[in-house]
């Protein structure tokens, strides 16, 4: 349990090098990949997300934890079984057209990666066509759109309608950002709404039946 605990604590404390060292040590001493993943990385990131959602920790701590998590994940991924790979989802993420705010989007991206999902970050000011084209190209399961401005959130409706037009009905759209609400999500026909980064992870899990 010692090594897993070290990994867990390294993630919570946002210690990138310790997390990497712990994962390597775990792999070398023959600990199950699944145990390192679940008991070391994912459960730690769950707690980080929870504390962030509760306002107990803030963006800097989450970013360092997510960085530690990503480093551990990169070391672990080559050892994944087919089953572990399949359980994941591929997510296209970006900030809505006309909007260049990326702090929230980056945070959600990191939390999703932290939760073990594959994230393709398109950046900021992304047109609806770009979201949909990339989703088709990457065979994505989910399109995640972020907006900080009340003015740019409107383009999220176009992402949904364009996706439906292109017959990508299996691709789900999740939205998030300060001005958004569940009502808006329903109104534009998006599949889900994350009130914050932690909730976004929970909603993606829901959408993927995980």
């Amino acid at each position, binding site marked *: 349990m010692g090594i897993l605990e070290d990994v867990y604590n390294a993630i919570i404390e946002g210690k990138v090098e310790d997390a990497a060292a712990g994962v390597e040590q775990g792999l070398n001493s023959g600990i199950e990949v699944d145990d390192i993943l679940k008991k070391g990385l994912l459960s730690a990131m769950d707690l980080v997300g929870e504390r962030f959602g*509760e306002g107990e920790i803030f963006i800097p701590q989450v970013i360092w934890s997510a960085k530690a998590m990503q480093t551990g994940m990169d070391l672990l991924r080559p050892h994944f079984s087919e089953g572990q790979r399949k359980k994941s989802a591929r997510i296209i993420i970006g900030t809505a057209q006309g909007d*260049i705010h990326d702090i929230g989007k980056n945070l959600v991206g990191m939390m999703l990666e932290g939760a073990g999902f594959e994230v393709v970050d398109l950046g900021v000011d992304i047109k609806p066509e770009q979201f949909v084209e990339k989703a088709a190209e990457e065979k994505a399961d989910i399109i995640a759109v972020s907006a900080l401005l009340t003015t740019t959130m409107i383009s999220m409706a176009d992402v949904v309608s364009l996706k439906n037009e292109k017959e990508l009905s299996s691709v789900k759209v999740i939205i998030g950002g*300060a001005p958004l609400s569940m*009502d808006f999500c329903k109104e534009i026909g998006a599949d889900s709404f994350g009130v914050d980064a932690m909730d976004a992870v929970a909603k993606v899990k829901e959408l993927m039946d995980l």
Partner: protein
Amino acid sequence: MRNLFLEKLKEKVILFDGAMGTMLMKAGQDPLKTPIRLNLDEPDLVTDIHKLYYTAGADAVITNTFGGSPLKLAADGLEEQLVELNREAVRLTRRSCPDGKFVAGDIGPSGKMLKPLGDVAPEEMQENFFAQAGVLIEAGVDLIIIETMYALDEALAAVQGVRKAGDVLLLASMTYSKTKNGFFTVMGENIPRCVSVLEEAGADMMGANCTLNSTDIIDLTEELRAATDKPILIQPNAGKPVTSKGLTYYEQTPAEFAIDAVKIKKAGADMIGGCCGTTPEFIKAVAEALR
């Protein structure tokens, strides 16, 4: 001018204006384009909005330069127009400004994070704000307001940049969220910490704006009042934006906002204005309520 503004503060609560973006949208501007371009593209529209706010009772109106620092301008490919966009913005506000009222040069966040979380070095961040402040001061603003800062390290770089640019009256306003443990920036800095760092760096006045509505910001005003002897400016949002059938509006009405403004004054605010979603009607209602 520094003295005129401070003199006025002794007489009354100084009223600032409300939102610019909300008004531009109402005027049918493409929301996908950055508002600062309008200083050159639609100068009359910007002037008209400034005039509406002065007429509504604002003593100080903030220039349309929120996104006017080089790093932010570069995100829209406008960095070459740093001088024209900022200078013109001050001219438009000044020409709307009646005698005895004030023009506040606006500085907003760069949109980038400082190292080690982001990739901008402190010197580069300071230089970013120094460049914008230089143009605003040269163009003749009465004071500079740094606002909507959500990271203390960036706000500090902004105060240092402005101070390097000139001896102008300077207000620094942070954005706080309400958590169960009190008010914090999203980076986790509390009010006393922000105030002490910004005062030490040479800000003359403190503030809080954005994110919170006029009701939630009353408690914050008390905390900010307790943390500093300097004049404080409070600029709440008009609640949260609500979207229905493609139209966006804000939860709070001017009347509700004005009732809270009286409480904000009582909690110790020396200056009151409005952030996202507020309009000249809000400022008018506040002016009447405080009279």
